[in-house]
């Protein structure tokens, strides 16, 4: 057992740290972290940040050097996430492009696709969104109804996508559409690289329960794609999705470190907030609950370390790594539920009137999304039950 970093890993961390200290937006490290309000300014801000990362060689560290990456080791990737969480870096606007689309194209894209997209993903010229979910296809993705029909050598696409993150800022969409109805429900699905800057694509932001507008509805009305926009083979999109998932090797590093940081903030609140002149941590109920969360959040981090160890030794993640997402997202909900409770009657307030400027209130509301997005907790439990424990599959799947 060994938790220390190697000299090379330390050097990597120090290099990133010093780069961040110079290149983060002005005042960011000191806590001035407000993002612009208007869509245009917000988009520009995030694209500028991605451009800066690219210029510094920090946009896609896990990519091969030939594509402009650093060929980073798994540990370097984890350190990268840890440092980005530590400085609360601005979101990576092209997350989908860098972590999903480009690695998939590197593996199975045509030369033309690689040429057209990979560099533009890296520089942030093309921001990507992911067109998976639909109103009638949530947890059951095979139920998608968006259809692509070939006519006069072009694909005409009609349908509706939903919960599409960053679609309002995106130039391209990694789109799932049905191209055939025969056979099993996993068959006849095709992945298209869709240009979003066209008449047949309309994006409407959805206001979330926490007031933000991070995801969207996307309406496709006779949107057009071409044969050269298909990833892999026509009708074999499901295997593209599987391949894409296998690229995931650092798992949910960012979420693990974020949860840890959030815990520290809640602990700080418990030591700082006072009731009748005493820090609320002196209340045994609060001390007890916080110690319980400390144990469970430490446990989640350590589970993650155990799973990374498995990946480092075996070259790929073991089945147990599928526990991480479920555990971390559920713990986030419990942490902020607790953070609300311990505020006492001040917990009803929000924004600047609430303790800590309403940071806990905001994160409390946001935490409800984490157990739904990226596969609901229920779907995660099915997967774990079937893949790890070998329990029989649900009927209907």
């Amino acid at each position, binding site marked *: 057992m060994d938790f220390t970093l190697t000299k090379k890993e330390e050097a990597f961390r120090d290099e990133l740290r010093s780069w961040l200290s110079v290149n983060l937006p002005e005042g960011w490290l000191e806590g001035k972290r407000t993002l612009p309000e208007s869509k245009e300014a917000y988009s520009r801000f995030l694209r500028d940040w991605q451009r800066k990362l690219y210029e510094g060689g920090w946009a896609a560290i896990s990519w091969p050097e030939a594509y402009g990456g650093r060929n980073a080791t798994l540990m370097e990737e984890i350190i990268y996430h840890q440092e980005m969480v530590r400085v609360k870096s601005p979101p990576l606007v092209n997350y989908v492009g860098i972590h999903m689309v480009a690695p998939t194209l590197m593996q199975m894209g045509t030369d033309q696709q690689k040429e057209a997209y990979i560099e533009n993903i890296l520089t942030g010229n093309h921001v990507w969104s992911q067109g998976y979910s639909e109103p009638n296809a949530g947890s059951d993705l095979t139920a998608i109804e968006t259809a692509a029909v070939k006519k006069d050598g072009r694909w005409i696409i009609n349908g509706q996508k939903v919960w599409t993150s960053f679609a309002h800022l995106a130039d391209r969409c990694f789109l799932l559409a049905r191209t055939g109805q025969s056979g099993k429900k996993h068959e006849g699905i095709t992945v298209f690289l869709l240009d979003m800057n066209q008449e047949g694509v309309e994006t409407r932001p959805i206001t979330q329960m926490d007031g933000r507008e991070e995801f969207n509805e996307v309406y496709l009305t006779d949107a057009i794609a071409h044969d050269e926009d298909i990833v892999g083979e026509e009708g074999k999109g499901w295997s593209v999705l599987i391949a894409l998932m296998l690229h995931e090797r650092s798992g949910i590093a960012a979420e693990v470190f974020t949860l840890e940081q959030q815990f520290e903030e809640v602990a700080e609140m418990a*030591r700082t907030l006072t009731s009748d002149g005493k820090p609320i941590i002196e209340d045994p109920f609060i001390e007890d609950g916080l110690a319980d969360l400390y144990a469970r959040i430490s446990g989640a981090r350590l589970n993650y370390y155990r799973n990374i160890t498995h990946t480092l030794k075996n070259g790929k993640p073991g089945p147990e790594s599928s526990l991480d997402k479920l555990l971390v997202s559920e713990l986030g909900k419990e942490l902020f539920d607790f953070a609300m409770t311990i505020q006492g009657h001040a917990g009803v307030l929000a924004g600047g009137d609430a303790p800590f400027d309403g940071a806990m209130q905001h994160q409390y509301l946001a935490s409800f999304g984490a157990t739904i997005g990226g596969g609901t907790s229920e779907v995660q439990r099915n997967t774990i039950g079937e893949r790890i424990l070998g329990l029989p599959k649900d009927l209907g799947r």
Partner: protein
Amino acid sequence: MDFSLNEEQELFRSAVRKYLKDLGGTGTARATIRGDDEPARAAASGLAEMGINAIPVPEQQDGLGLGALDLVPVFEETGRVLLPGLQLETLALAVPLITNYGTEEQKKRWLPLAASGESAFSVAWYETGRSLFPETFACTATRIDNRYELSGVKTLVPVTGSPDLFIVGAEAPGGTSLFLVEASEAASVRPLSCLDETQLPAELSFRNAHAELLGEPGKGQDMLREALLHFNTALVSGMVGGMDELVKITAEYAKIRVQFNQPIGRFQAIKHRIVDMKLDLETARSLSHYAAWAVETGADDRIAAVHSARSFASRAYIKAAGDSIQIHGGIGFTEELDCHLYLKRARYWDHYFGSVRDSRKAAAGSLGWHARQTADAAPVS
């Protein structure tokens, strides 16, 4: 980054697991419940022959001088079959106490006996109506020339496995202190009925028993707190072993039990409950392995690490045992199945040498959450 037990530790685990399985798994525990101690005694000497008793004993005293991590696989496997005996008390509490605080003579006298498995040790600490760390004990030790005489009544002293030596907490000039008292010095041993019938706690009374001071007078609580870090680490390994077995037998049952024309494991109400058991198991395992690492290396956060592991695993073990009974349905409520044995063991350990609340308090204190108070606070564990 390497967060895993090493190959030797895993190999050793396989050997211990196979040995205990060949002895009949929980059959050994069931024999103890029937009043037949022989299988547990045989298992104890078999394990000693495999070298488990030598693990924590220093090399100078015929041991292997290994650390807390090497005990992890051992206690996971003894916990899996609910093995009755004093391995935990001897190897993870008495041996660390004697090793860290004993005189050369005491070490020479007792540690080789522990390493070979010839002797088992127990700890006589609790008194009726007093907390784990009371202001004072009623049991007293009086100094007469160069020796001590100890008198009083201790309760909840584990005696299954016939200990030869008790480490006893008593009031002495200077405060609460620890003493070595040979088993033959006890005036009476009254076995107590126990919810977990694989355990045999007893009430011990001493009248002017010959006692040897262990460590400095007045430091009894500090020494015990420190040694409990070793003890809790091993205890949590035992909990993890039990939980691992519970997840296994429960998932297996859900695959073969058919109702409504299908295995019940297909129903999400069942499936998700077993998955939650599995989540808790893996979290407990991670916390447990880290605690062992922290104790072995003397890490800064070892107190928080150990007590987080204990408080989490303790509750999770009880819950897993309860869920396993529920998922087994009617048969789960019978004596015939092992589920209730795990529940009773989980309960016993939950109350044993501390509680979830004690552990959470200790973790909070060590993490400096009460910064205003730590300046003149006593060392915590």
